[in-house]
C-alpha cells in the first residue's frame, strides 16, 4: 500500500501510523450534549466503499493527513493535510 503524502509524495504505508476515521477532526464544542461526544468518541461507520481516515507520517515528515480511499477496491483517491481536510465532508 502506497500513501500519497501531500508533502513527501507516495510512500510505503509502513512509514505511517493509522488513527481512524477523520471524524476525529470534528471535535464537538466543550458544552456539546453527551450524545455529540458519544458519537465523536465511539460511533464509526464501517463503509464498504469510500472512506476517509487519518494517518500520521511518523517515519517521515510528521504530517497528519486525511487519506481518501475505497475499502472495497483499495484505490486511494487522494490525501490532504489534516488541517486542510478537516472542513471537507
Amino acid at each position, binding site marked *: *500500500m*502506497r500513501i500519497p503524502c501531500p508533502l513527501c509524495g*507516495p510512500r*510505503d504505508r509502513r512509514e505511517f*501510523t493509522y*488513527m481512524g476515521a477523520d471524524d*476525529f*477532526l470534528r*471535535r*464537538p464544542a*466543550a458544552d*456539546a450534549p*453527551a450524545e455529540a*461526544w458519544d458519537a*465523536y*468518541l465511539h460511533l464509526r461507520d464501517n463503509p464498504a466503499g469510500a472512506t476517509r481516515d*487519518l494517518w*500520521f507520517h*511518523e517515519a517521515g515528515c*510528521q*504530517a*497528519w493527513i486525511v487519506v481518501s480511499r475505497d475499502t472495497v477496491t*483499495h*484505490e*486511494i483517491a487522494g490525501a490532504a*493535510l*489534516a*488541517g486542510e481536510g*478537516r472542513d471537507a465532508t
Partner: protein
Amino acid sequence: MRLDSGGLIDRTRPLGFAFDMVGVRGYAGDTVASALLAKGVRLVGRSFKYHRPRGIMTAGPEEPNALIEVREGSQRTPNVRATVQEAFDGLDVRSQNAWPSLGFDLMAVNDVLAPFFGAGFYYKTFMWPPAWWERVYEPLIRRAAGLGRLSGQHDEGRCEKAWAFCDLLVIGAGPAGLAAALAAAHAGADVILAEQDFRLGGRLLADRQEVAGMPAAEWVAATQAELAALPNVRLMPRTAVFGAYDDGVFGALERVGLHLADPPADLPRECVWRIVARQAILAAGALERPVAFPGNDRPGVMLASAVRAYANRWAVAAGRAVAVFTTCDSGRAAAEDLVAAGVNVVQVIDARADASAICSAPLLRGAVVTATRGRRGLRAIRLRDPGGPERWIEADCLAVAGGWTPTVHLACHRNNRPLWREDIAAFVPAPGAVPGMTAAGAVNGHATTAACLADGQAAARAALDALGRRAPDLALPPAEDGPRSARPLWAVDAPGRAWLDFANDVTTKDVRLAAAEGYASVEHMKRYTTQGMAPDQGRNSNLGALAVLAQATGQTIPGTGTTTYRPPFVPVPIAALGAGGRGKGFAPERLPASHAASLARGAPMLEAGLWYRPAWFPRPGEATWRDSCDREVAMVRGAVGVCDVSTLGKIDIQGPDAGRLLDLVYTGTFSTLPVGRVRYGLMLREDGFVMDDGTSARLAPDHFVMTTTTAAAGQVMRHLEFVTQGLRPDLDVRVISVTEQWAQMAAAGPLARRLVASVLDGPLDLGFMGCAAVGVMGVPGRVFRISFSGEEGYEIAVPAGRGAALFRDLCARAETLGGGPYGLEALNVLRIEKGFVTHAEINGRVTAFDLGLQGMCKAGDFIGKAAAARPGLTGPAREQLVGLCPADPATAIGAGAHLFAPGARIHRETDEGHVTSACYSPTLGSHIGLGFLRDGRARVGQEVRLVDHLRKVDVPCLVTSPVFHDPEGGRMRG
C-alpha cells in the same frame, strides 16, 4: 543419461555433489535434477501420505516430488526443489520424507493400507475416543507428517530485505517478457525484468526452435546482452515475484547465495524485494499439466515439456526408452524434439484420433495409457487403442502432455477470479484484474513463440501509453508460428488409482468421494482431500481436480470455479521475510549519555522500552540489589543523589499560542504560568482517561519545554502533532521532539543545592518549581527545580554531547558530599514513598479522579474534559489510588496482588482493587505499596486483605494516603 552433444551446459566446467551421500557428476549450468537424471537416478523422494516412490516430474519450480534438503547445521534449508537448485561443487543434498532410507521406506506400509486412507480419513478415524486425541493420535500423526526437517538450531543464515522502484516490472523472461522488456527499455522506461530461473529465456531454452533466424537460445543471449547494456534496465534472474499487492507493490524473492559453492560470509542467502512499479507486465507463462491415468505417479512418468527441456537445455535423456502420451500438438512437438536430440522415442500415443499422422516415431492415434508397471521406477505402460486389445509396451520414461495451464496466480492475488476460455480449456487472467498490470504471452493462452513475442510487445505498448511514453518502432523477430490444437483429457477412464496431486497423494477417486460425501464445492473438496495443499500448492493438479470434480457434480468447470489464489506464489522463508528483524535489529538500543560511566561503575542495566537504564550502582560489600538500593535511597534522603533522566521525553513548544496549546492538552492552566516557572501537568485522552503526566517549563513568553514519561514520549508527540495540525491549525505554535538533543541529570537530596550550585556558571537562585537558562561548566544549559523523589531536587539540562561529562562530574562532586549516583530501583522506591505515579498507575484505565487529581482539572475546556465527566468515571464505585502498608512491615507485597474487604470470600466478583507498585521502603522500615481500591480515599485508616496467589501472600494491610513520605512537602520545597 547425458547426450553426447548440445545443451546449455558448460562441459568444460565439470562439478560433483552428493545426493544422499552418493556422488553425482554434472556440469556448470546443471540443476540438481538435471544432474540426477543424467546419472540415471529416478527415485528422488517419497509422497506425503502413502510414501510412494517418486521421481522428478518437472523442470521448474512447480516440481511436486523432488524436494530436497540443502546444506547442514544452522544453514539447513528443507523443501528446496531439485529442479531449481543449481548444482555446484561440494553441494550436499538429501532426500526427504523417507525412513530409514529412500529406497526402503518403512512408512510405505501406508501405501498397502491405502484403501483405508481415502479422503477425509483423518476426520473419520481420529474422532473416538476423544481422550485419545491428545495422547495417541496427535503424536502419531505429527511423527508421520511433515516434509523435510528443520535443523532445530537458530537459523544464522543471513537474509536481506530491499526495495526497488521502476516504471515497468516485467515478470518472466520468456519470449513475451523479453519482447516487452526490449520495447519498454528502448522507450527509455526504467525496467526491471524478474525471472525465477537462473537463466533468462523460459521455454526458448527448452524447445528446439529458431528466433530471428538463429537458435532460440542464441537470440535470448543477444537480447540479454542488449538489455544488460542499457542503463535503464535491471535484470533480476533467480528472482521469483511472489505477490501482487496494492498500488503497484510486488513482493519478490531473490536467491542470492544459495547457488554458490563458497558464498562470501556477508552475502545474504536470499533477499525479499519489495518492488514498486508504476506498470507491470505479467509474462509468467504456462505450465504443462499431467493427465490422470492409473499408475501415473511412478518415477519416470514426467511432463513432456520437462523431458523436452532436459534434452534440449541440459542434454539429458530422461530415459533409454521414452514413450510420449499427449493430448495436444505441443506433446507431438516434444516428441519430434526428442528424436532430433537423439533420445530413443519408442512410442507416441496421441489421445486424439484425428491428430496429424506425421511423426518421426511409432505413432498411435486415439489411444490412451491405462496402467503402468515398475516398483521404484517405470518399466512398462499399458496401452488401449481402438485397434485391438490392451497391451503392454516397455518404457522407462513416459512424457505426458495434457495441455497448458496459464500461470494466472499473480493476476488473482487481489481476489479476482480468472476467466475460463473453452477454446483452450484453461483459465486466463481477467483484464484489469490488477490495476496497472497487463498479462502477456502464454499466460494469456498464446501457444506459439511468434504470438508470445507479439503479445509481449503489445503489452509493453499499452504500459508505455499509461506511462506517457512513446513505444519504439521495433520489428518482431520471425519465430515459430501456426495453429495449435489441444483437446483436454483430464482423466483416463480405467480402473486403478490415478493421481491428481502427486505431493499429497490425492487421486481422482478421492475427489469423487469428496463430491459424493457432500464436499462438492471446490473450496470444501480442497480441504477434505488436501488437494493443492502440498508445497507445490496445486500447480500441477488444480485444474485436473477441478475438472474431475465438475464431472462428478455434473457442472461445468467455470461453474465449479477455482479456489482462492493467495500470495505467496512461491514459498518464502520466514527468515527472509523477517530479515533484519532479529536481535538488535528487532530491538535497537537507546543509550543515555551516562551509559559508559554507569557500566564503568558496574551498574546492571534495565530495559525501559528501547532504553537501557542503570538499575543500581553496587559498592564493595553489597551482597544483593536490595543492599545497593536501600543505600541509594538513604543517600538521597540524607545527602544527595545523581540520576540520568535523559530518557524522559522532551518536547520544545514555541509560538505566540504555546500557552493556549498547553491549556488544551493539559487539565491545568499553563497560559498564566510566569516565565521562569515550571508546572506539573496531567494529560488526558479525549475519552477522559489519563494519557501521561509530566512538567512543562516556561522559558520565555512564547517558549515552553515539556517533559513526558519515558514510555509515552512517542504517543504524546503524536498527540501534540494531531492537536496542532488537525484540531487547532489556527494556533500559531510549533512542537518538536528534543529528547535526543538534551541530556538531563537529576540531583536530589538535602545537599542537592550545594552540588548543583558548584557546576553552574552563575548563581543558583531558584524557588521550588522555578527554572532558568544558565551556563553549566561553560555550556549553555537549563536548570529546573523539580523533584521526583520528594527531596529538594534539580534537573540540569545540557546539550546531549556534554551529558557524559556532566554526569561524571556530578557523581564525583556528589561523592565528596557523601552522595553518589542512584539507579532505577532507588528512583522507583523514592517515588513510591512520595506517592508519585508512573505508567504502572497510569495504565490507560485510570482517570484524574482515580488518582485524586480531580482538583487539577480546570473549569475551561481541555482534551478529555467532557468525557471525564461521564457517569461512572467518578464516585465511590471507582477504584482510587491509595497507599498500602502490610500489618507486618516485613511481609513483602508485590504488584499484581488483589485487594478484598476483610472477611470477604476471595473471588473475582468480590475483588475490590489491586496493587500497582510495591517496594521495601528503607525510609519507613516497611514494605509499602501503591494500588487502586474501590472508594479507597474514604477507606484510609481501614484494613483490607491483600491476596497474591502467585507469590503465596495473604496479609491484612492498612489503607493509607499514597504519600508516605513528607506529606506536607516541606523537604521538597526546601
